[in-house]
């Protein structure tokens, strides 16, 4: 069943991202920057003009001195969301189109990163090229990125690596989150991910897949039409099991290959609730943060 928020996201992506994020998150990763937050860092003397709300009143009662309690800020990393907006992301099922789900998840991830003080950037891959919005801090950046996501449509194919390299590799190393369906004509997505990871980026792939696409439970004989190439293939009902098996085998091989390259892959079903998808998207980072503490 289609989540009504996917429809609402057509009008106000930020609002939908807020409702989604508010239900689900804690910090993605710890920050080295001092400031207000949850993790205690140090006490320091109060300086006139500072916000009185930051004074530790319990310590004042005990010591009769004004101290400011400092904690590590939640984040200070660079988070770059790469959105696969090629033709294949137009694949739609009862729950909605992949691109719609990817857009909401991208907005939510950008909002999370923004709230934690990260520099956020956006790369939209489509039409054999990519639109790059470099990482920056601030609310204006968030609104700029969300505005860019607002009227996005899926079209074209994934570009070759030579065209993508100058757009993905340079810049500050940080977290790169790719929202994609991992459909590729050859090895172009895998190669790009492998090279971005090799360049020192922390790469997470959120692979979206539809229920019918995964189970291949279409009734009767059908003709499949490739959204990117327009190629048509007639498939009989009897061939369903074989198609399922091939798809599962290919997905497993692809995951293993990406893991070996240091790329984490999280598969998200279109039929899963958006909150759960967001939690699963953030889980690897939270797990890494806990391990690093």
């Amino acid at each position: 069943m289609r989540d009504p928020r996917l429809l609402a996201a057509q009008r106000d992506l930020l609002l939908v991202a807020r409702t989604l994020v508010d239900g689900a998150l804690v910090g993605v990763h710890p920050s080295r920057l001092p400031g207000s937050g949850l993790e205690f860092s140090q006490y320091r003397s109060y300086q006139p003009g500072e916000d009185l709300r930051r004074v530790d009143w319990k310590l004042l009662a005990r010591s009769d001195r004004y101290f400011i309690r400092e904690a590590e800020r939640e984040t200070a990393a660079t988070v770059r969301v790469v959105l696969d907006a090629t033709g294949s992301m137009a694949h739609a099922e009862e729950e909605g189109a992949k691109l719609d789900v990817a857009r909401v998840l991208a907005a939510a991830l950008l909002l999370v990163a923004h709230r934690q003080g990260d520099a956020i950037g956006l790369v939209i891959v489509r039409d054999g090229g990519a639109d790059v919005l470099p990482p920056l801090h601030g609310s204006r950046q968030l609104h700029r990125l969300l505005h860019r996501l607002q009227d996005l449509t899926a079209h074209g194919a994934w570009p070759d690596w030579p065209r993508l390299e100058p757009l993905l590799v340079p810049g500050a190393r940080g977290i790169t989150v790719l929202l994609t369906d991992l459909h590729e004509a050859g090895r172009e997505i895998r190669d790009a991910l492998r090279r971005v990871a090799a360049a020192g980026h922390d790469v997470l792939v959120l692979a979206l897949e539809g229920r019918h696409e995964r189970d291949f439970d279409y009734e009767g004989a059908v003709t499949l039409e490739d959204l990117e190439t327009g190629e048509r293939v007639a498939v009989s009902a009897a061939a369903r099991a074989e198609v399922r098996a091939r798809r599962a085998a290919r997905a497993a091989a692809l995951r293993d290959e990406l893991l070996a390259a240091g790329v984490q892959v999280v598969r998200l079903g279109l039929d899963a609730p958006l909150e759960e998808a967001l939690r699963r998207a953030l889980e690897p980072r939270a797990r890494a943060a806990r391990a690093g503490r």
Partner: protein
Amino acid sequence: MTPLDPRGLAALAALALPLALHLWSSRPRRVIRVGSVRDAAGIPAARRLGRRLDDPLRFALRAGALVALALALAGLRAAPPAPAAHVVVPAVAESAAAPLLDSLRAGGVTVHHVAPGPPVWPALAAADAQAAPGASLVVIAPPWASLLGAYRPALTRAATWRDVAARPPGDGDAPARVTAVIVTSAARRAEGRVLRAALEAARAVRGDSLEIRELLDTDAAPPVGSVPWLAWLSEAPLPAAWRAATAGTLLRAGGTTPAMSVRALDDEGRPLLYEAAPGDLYLAAPLTAQRLPAILTARFADVVAGTLPAPVTTAADTTRVSAAQRAPARSTLQAAPADPSPRERTEAAFPWWLLAVACFAAERASTWRRRRG
């Protein structure tokens, strides 16, 4: 499971239609736009064609509807209904059994009337040949010895006798005498004796109405008046005087022409008598045991008795006979199935019509759901 009309099963050939449609359908398939056809495109085309019985559920529903339709036309039923009885009634029992026959006729029972004169067995054999398989044979007759011949035919089923009390024929009627004349040459005297013995056996059944005369001289003049039955056993041609005197059946020895038809067969299917014209009979072979073994059987006596003129209104032998004496000889012959009644057809076809309608409705529902989906 037995079909009432096996011809209806020919409708099963219609199964080829949905099978062909599903295997070689050129209808535009449902087009689904997907992100990639890479996994499906890897399947060899020949293999896809070989296994492309598409939409097996709808094929099963369509085939099921057709099969049910064929079975409805064939009238397939769990068990055949009890066939109607065939009733054989000799003339002597007609009046005595009238109320019973009326009620049987009202129930749709087939009644065979036996031509006047004993024995009743040939009529029973004819009814056996006509009756449906499983139908019972019922003989409504008085238990008189005169109704039984010496020969009992082989029937495909048991016959039940229902006794009625009838007035013996000839009781108060004037008996009509029939004269049978046998003329033999010296060389064929032995054959004359065989024929006389057969006539004597017939007389035992018919009573005193049969007079048998045997003449050993072929040059003798015919008796005064007409001869209702003449056997001419001689190589000499039949004299014109004898020909003129014969008013009924003429039985001659030997010789067949292509125009003759077989009048009677022995138990093994070999001809006993040929008939050139009505009443003009020829023996198939000399009446010797070597040439015509049937003369040693009771059937030969019945065949000869069958050539004698009827009716015979002499007093019947009303000696009571036991049930065992009236039981026909049995054989294992299988007769053809009977035509079912319209009601039987309807009852047998109804569940199959229902199934056909259900399959069709399910197929339509499946198609509707698929179009919506």
